[in-house]
Every structure is written in structure tokens, then in C-alpha cells.
């Protein structure tokens, strides 16, 4: 709609809303520069008296950031790679190959999306704990000390395959013309070559979208990582570590350090999001309308 007059009222609403969205983040950044004891002082002041950059160093030191980053990176990288690989492969089979049971498999994939993640928290944890021949377990999954939950694999295992990812890839691969695939087959290309050299290049934008959705979702994942970290603190991820730091420290003295830690943990995702925003937004639109 293109009204002739300047929509003052709309501007007012949107700017007021934007202030409510952005001020909490600004408050976090400002607090991260405040000095010891300054954060809890009354009356409240938005700006720090002096910009204390050393809070960032303190956060890096006290948090064991190297370990947290390593765990978050492993968890996210494996999940993204696996989701992209399995989704495009399964999506290709469901979209372009003919095989008995295809409608059933497709419906099954759709059905997997109906089950919310919290339902799997307890059984997944118990399955990993009793995983045969892992973490000292015997063949029947007994006797060991934590099974797979003490391995770094526990962080990413529940996120390796995505029903939504398969569905998304299938929807886009369906629209690749059959003639292109047909021509490659006549030239003697096998299905793997077709997948690798036709399907993957043709679906690159969707792969970026799916990869980005998976990246943000896994990097920010909280409940499962928290659970795994309580079993083995060496597997702590960034979001969990930040929260732990918060509960360790005396809030009034060290709140700026916590806020500095939060800034450090947010920046990687925020940067990637801002760079690849259009792909992410398209993903949300698609998942919103699936």
C-alpha cells in the first residue's frame, strides 16, 4: 500500500517498538563496559562512567572460552554438515526416484515433524547412556559410566537428521526439470553423480537457507546441551557456560563480566545472520508456511 501522506502514526509505532527491541541489547553492551560495583548502583545509569574493556578479558579467562567455543563449533559443524547431506540425499530420492513405498516414506517424514523435541529428551538421554560398547558399556549397554553421554558425539547426535530438512529439499528438488536429469542418465551418469553434479549445484540457495537455520538453531540450543554438560562439564557449550558463569559470580560485582561474556557469545551468530540475512528470512518464511 502506498499512501500519499507520510504515515506518521506508523513511524511512531514502529520506532517505539524498535526501541523496545534494541534497548535491552544496548543495555547489555553498556553494562559490559561498567566498572566493579557500578552495575547495581542506584539510581540506574544507562552509560558507564568509564569504558572498562578488561571485562572482556576477564570473561575470556573465567569462562574457559576456548573449550566452550570448541564444543559449540563441533556440535554445530557436525549437525549442519549432517543435516545438509542427509536432507539432500533423502530429498532427491523422494523427489526424483521411483521406488516401492515412496508415498509411505514421504508421509512418515512429514509425520516426524509433529513430534516436539521435549518428548525425546528423556528417552534419547537413556538410549545414549545405555549405548552398547560405549563409555565402558557391555554389548547389552550395561555396566559403563554414562555410555555415549560422556562423548562429544552426545552433543550433536539428536540433531543429525531433520525431517523438516528432508521435506524442504524434496520440495525444491521436485521443481528441477526431469529433462536435465534424464539427459545425464542417457550420458551414463549414475544416481550419485547426478545428485553430486546436478542436484547439489541446482539447490545451493536452499542448502544455504537450510544450513543457516540449522546453524542458528544448534548454536543457540540450550536444554539438551545443558543436560549433557551436567553429565560431563567438559562438553559444556557456549550458551550453557554463559549461564553457569552468571550463577557462579556475585551479580553486583561481576555482572559486567557476564554481560561481556554474553556479547562474545552473541557476536558470531549475529555476524553470520546479518551477512546471510536474506537466506535466513526466506527459511523462516518457508518453515512458517510448510
Amino acid at each position, binding site marked *: 500500500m502506498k499512501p500519499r501522506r507520510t504515515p506518521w502514526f506508523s513511524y511512531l509505532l514502529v520506532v517505539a517498538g524498535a526501541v523496545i527491541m534494541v534497548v535491552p541489547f544496548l543495555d547489555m553492551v553498556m553494562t559490559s563496559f561498567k566498572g566493579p560495583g557500578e552495575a547495581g548502583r542506584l539510581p540506574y545509569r544507562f552509560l558507564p562512567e568509564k569504558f572498562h574493556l578488561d571485562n572482556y578479558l576477564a570473561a575470556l579467562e573465567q569462562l574457559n572460552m576456548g573449550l566452550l567455543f570448541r564444543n559449540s563449533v563441533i556440535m554445530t559443524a557436525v549437525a549442519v554438515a549432517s543435516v545438509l547431506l542427509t536432507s539432500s540425499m533423502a530429498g532427491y530420492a523422494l523427489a526424483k526416484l521411483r521406488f516401492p513405498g515412496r508415498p509411505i516414506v514421504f508421509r512418515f517424514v512429514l509425520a516426524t515433524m509433529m513430534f516436539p523435541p521435549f518428548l525425546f529428551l*528423556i528417552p534419547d538421554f537413556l538410549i545414549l547412556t545405555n549405548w552398547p560398547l560405549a563409555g565402558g558399556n557391555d554389548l547389552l549397554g550395561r555396566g559403563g559410566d554414562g555410555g555415549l553421554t560422556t562423548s562429544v558425539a552426545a552433543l550433536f547426535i539428536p540433531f543429525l537428521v531433520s525431517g523438516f530438512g528432508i521435506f524442504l529439499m524434496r*520440495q525444491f528438488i521436485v521443481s528441477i526439470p526431469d529433462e536435465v536429469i534424464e539427459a545425464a542418465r542417457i550420458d551414463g551418469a549414475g544416481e550419485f553423480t547426478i545428485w553430486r553434479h546436478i542436484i547439489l549445484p541446482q539447490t545451493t540457495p536452499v542448502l544455504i537457507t537450510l544450513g543457516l537455520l540449522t546453524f542458528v538453531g544448534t548454536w543457540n540450543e540450550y536444554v539438551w546441551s545443558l543436560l549433557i554438560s551436567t553429565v560431563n562439564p567438559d562438553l559444556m557449550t557456549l550458551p550453557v557456560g554463559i549461564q553457569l558463569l552468571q550463577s557462579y559470580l556475585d551479580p553486583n560485582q561481576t555482572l559486567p563480566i557476564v554481560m561481556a561474556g554474553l556479547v562474545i557469545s552473541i557476536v558470531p551468530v549475529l555476524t553470520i545472520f546479518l551477512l546471510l*540475512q536474506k537466506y535466513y528470512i526466506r527459511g523462516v518464511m518457508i518453515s512458517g508456511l510448510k
Partner: protein
Amino acid sequence: MATVLHENEQRSPRGGASRRAGSVPSGMAKARRREAIVAYAFLSPSLLFFAIFLILPLIFAVVLALSAWGGFDLTQIEFVGLDNFAEILNPASTFVAPILVNTLVFAAGSVVLTLVASVVLANAINRLRFQGFWRTLYFLPIVTTVAAVGNIWKYLYEPSGGLINGVLNALGMSSVRFLADPDTALPSVVVVQAWASLGTAILILTAGLKNIPETYYEAAELDGAGSWRMFWNITLPLLRPTLLFVLITQVIAGLQSFALIIVMTGGGPGDATNVAGFEMYQQAFNFGMWGIASAMALVLFLIIFAITLLQLWLFRQRGEETS
């Protein structure tokens, strides 16, 4: 967008495979079998994963919900029928009230806030320049981890030194102990949940708004309708399917989310902000009550499942309307 997906569905490629098989009549059956084997090879990693981490856990969840189990040796699992359900759904237990009640209040409250704010804002943004920029601002919390969102707001709510009470004090009001007071704790968390979901809702509603033909507004303008009448008589009715969608997905998300509760309140003070997901988590992983916790998970799932069926039913209605 929904219609695009629908078209794709109909263009489902039977043609490709059969045409190929037809061109080599002698090897037709063999080619078909080979194609089926390749297809299942491509599907096998996903299907194997679903077998171990979808079907097996679902069975396990039901078995656990019907059993009493100490948590170590699976051979010592004891079948107790519906006892766990009887225990948690007993009116005297805390699961129904306050926990399930809190869960519904949390979901309903955040959804109402999100919906009202996102309709108003999506509509307003749609009239402005630099729409992408404005939507990005509203989208920031979506890409921020819940641990950060929760801690940022926890500090904003802080009675001594937090921004919100700072503003209240500057206006001459006394401080409110938002998260420490049982009366304000749940509404305070609800506001954060709504704040964090706003971006997605605005995005989806914007897509809905762009689908409303410009000509409707032009015709209404010729008839002398003002912006309010256009909003009530054109925008809202035509946005209804999108609104229903946002409503239902947000309700489902609200019913199951408890990460914000872990980060901000730990369910407290008392049980004031305890929700079903968090209670399930605690019963299982803090108290080792696997059976009780699994029964809670199933009850919550059934509630969500009923709402999902409602969603499918509404979509079917919508499909009939548009076709």
C-alpha cells in the same frame, strides 16, 4: 508461498522414471529394481536415524510412562499401568495446578501479546520505507541464544540497578520485584517470551499482507474508507489464515518451551513460574523419577497433539475456501 508448495506437490515426477524405463523395455524390471535400491541407499542414513532416535524413543517414552524404574538396570523395570498418570493428574498434585495452569497461561499470554503486537507492527512496517531494516531489528532476539535473552532481561527486571525499575523510579514510582514476587513473576517471563517471538510473527504476517491485492484498498479508497476501516474490513479478514497459522504455531511453541524458565527463574519463586516442560526435566534429571517425568511428557504431548490436529483441520477448511 503455500500455493507454490502445493503446485510442486502436483508436479510430482512420475514421468521421469517411467519414460526411462519405457525406453529400455528389455531391462525395465531390472532398471526399476536398481532405482529402488539406489533410492533406499540415499534414504538409509535418514531412516536409520529415525528408527533409533525417533521410533525407539517414542516406544521407550510410552513404556517408561507406564512403569516404575530406578534408572540403572533396564531388566528391573516394573510395569505399573496408568499409576503415573493417576498420580500426576490427581487434583492434589502440583502438576495440574499450578504447573499445567502456568503452562497454559504462559502460552496463551505470550501468544496474545505476540499476535496483537505483530499485527499492528507488521501492518505499520508495511507502510514505511526501509522495511527490511525495521524487520531486522525486530528479528534480533530470534538469532540470540535463550541464555543471553534470559540473562539480559533478568538484569533489566532487577530491582536494584535494572533499567526498567530505573525508569519507574525516574517517573516517581517505587521499584517492582518483577521476578521475585509470585504475582508478577509469570507475567514478567511471558513478556520476554513474546518479545523474543515477535520477529518471526512479523515476518510471516508480512508475507500474508503482501498477498492481499492492492486493488481492494484502491477500491475502498474510492469509496472513501479511512485507514481504520480498511484495516478492520480488508486487512484483518484477509489476513485470517495467516493469523490462525501464527496463533497455532506460537501456542505450540509456548506450551513446550521452558529454556527461558530455566535461565530466568528456575520455576520460582515457589512454583510461580513452573511449567510442564521444566517439571518434566526436573523430575527426570534431578529426581530420577523417569516414569512420572515420561507421563508428564506424554500428557503435554497429547495437549499439543490436539492443537496440531486443530491446525490441520483449520488448514483443510482454508484449502476448501481458496480452491
